[in-house]
C-alpha cells in the first residue's frame, strides 16, 4: 500500500509541474528552451533555499526527474563544493554534480546522430 501511495505522489507532483509548464506554453506561447530554463532555475532556487530536500522526501522522482532535479543537482554540488573546497569548489562543484546528465545526453546525442536519420512527420 505504501508503494502505491509513493507512486501516486510521484505522479501527482511530476504531473503538476508539467501542468504548470503547459500553462506557460498555452498562455505565453513560450518555446521549449525558455520553459526548460525557467524550471531549471526554479530547481536551483529551491535547492539554494534548502526547500528542495523536503519536497524530495515526499515526492521523490516527481521532482527529481523533471529538469528541476537537474537544477537542484547543480546548486547542491556548488554548495557542497563551496563548503569543502572554497572558491574552486564553488565554481566547479555544480558542473561536477550535474555531469551525469550532461555527459550522458551529449554521448547519446552524438551516437544517435551517427546512426539514425530524422523522419518526416505526418506520413503513415
Amino acid at each position, binding site marked *: 500500500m505504501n508503494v502505491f501511495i509513493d507512486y501516486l505522489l*510521484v*505522479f*501527482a507532483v*511530476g*504531473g*503538476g*509541474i*508539467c*501542468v*504548470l*509548464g*503547459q*500553462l*506557460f*506554453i*498555452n498562455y505565453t506561447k513560450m518555446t*521549449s*528552451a*525558455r*520553459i*526548460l530554463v525557467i*524550471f*531549471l532555475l526554479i530547481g536551483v532556487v529551491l*535547492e*539554494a533555499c534548502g526547500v528542495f530536500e523536503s519536497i524530495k522526501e515526499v515526492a*521523490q*522522482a*516527481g521532482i*527529481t*526527474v*523533471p*529538469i528541476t*532535479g*537537474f537544477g537542484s543537482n*547543480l*546548486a547542491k*554540488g*556548488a*554548495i557542497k*563544493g563551496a563548503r569543502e573546497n572554497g*572558491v574552486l569548489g*564553488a*565554481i566547479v*562543484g555544480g*558542473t561536477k554534480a550535474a555531469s*551525469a*546528465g*550532461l555527459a*550522458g*545526453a551529449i554521448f*547519446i*546525442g*552524438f*551516437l*544517435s*546522430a*551517427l*546512426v539514425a*536519420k*530524422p523522419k518526416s512527420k505526418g506520413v503513415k
Partner: protein
Amino acid sequence: MILNKEEQKVYKKEIKDVAPKTKHISTLLRAFFTGGTICCIGQGVNQVLGILLPSLTEEDRGGYTTLLMIFFTGILTAFGVYDHIGNFGGAGSIIPITGFANSIVSQAMEHKREGIIFGICSNMFAIAGPVIVMGITASVVVGIVYLFL
C-alpha cells in the same frame, strides 16, 4: 505599409476572434498524464536499481537513473517515437530530463548531413544550450553566495 501601435492592437484583437481556441483542459490533462507517467518510470528505475545494486549510495542511484532515462530518450528519438509523445504530451514531455535529452538528440540528428564537426557537434546545443549556460551560471552564483554564508 506598417500599422502604428494602436492599430496593431486592434488587429491582434481581431485575430483572437477568428483563431481557434487552444483546448486548455485537454492539453493540461495530457501534460499531467505524460509528465506523471515519465516521473513514475523514473521512480521505478530508481527502485529497481536499489534492489539490483544495493551497494550504491542514494546519490549514485540518482545519477544512474538520470543516465538510463536519457538513454531511453535517445533510443526513442532515434526511432522517431519521441516527437509523437511530444505532440501528445506537450510540456509533459518537455520538462522532464527526457525532454532535455530529446532537444539535444533531435538537433544532432537533424544536422547530420552537414558533417560531424560542423553539423552534429556545433548544432547539438541549439535548443539545450541556454539550459546549460543558465544552469551552470546559476550554480556558480549559488556557490559563491554560499562561500560568504
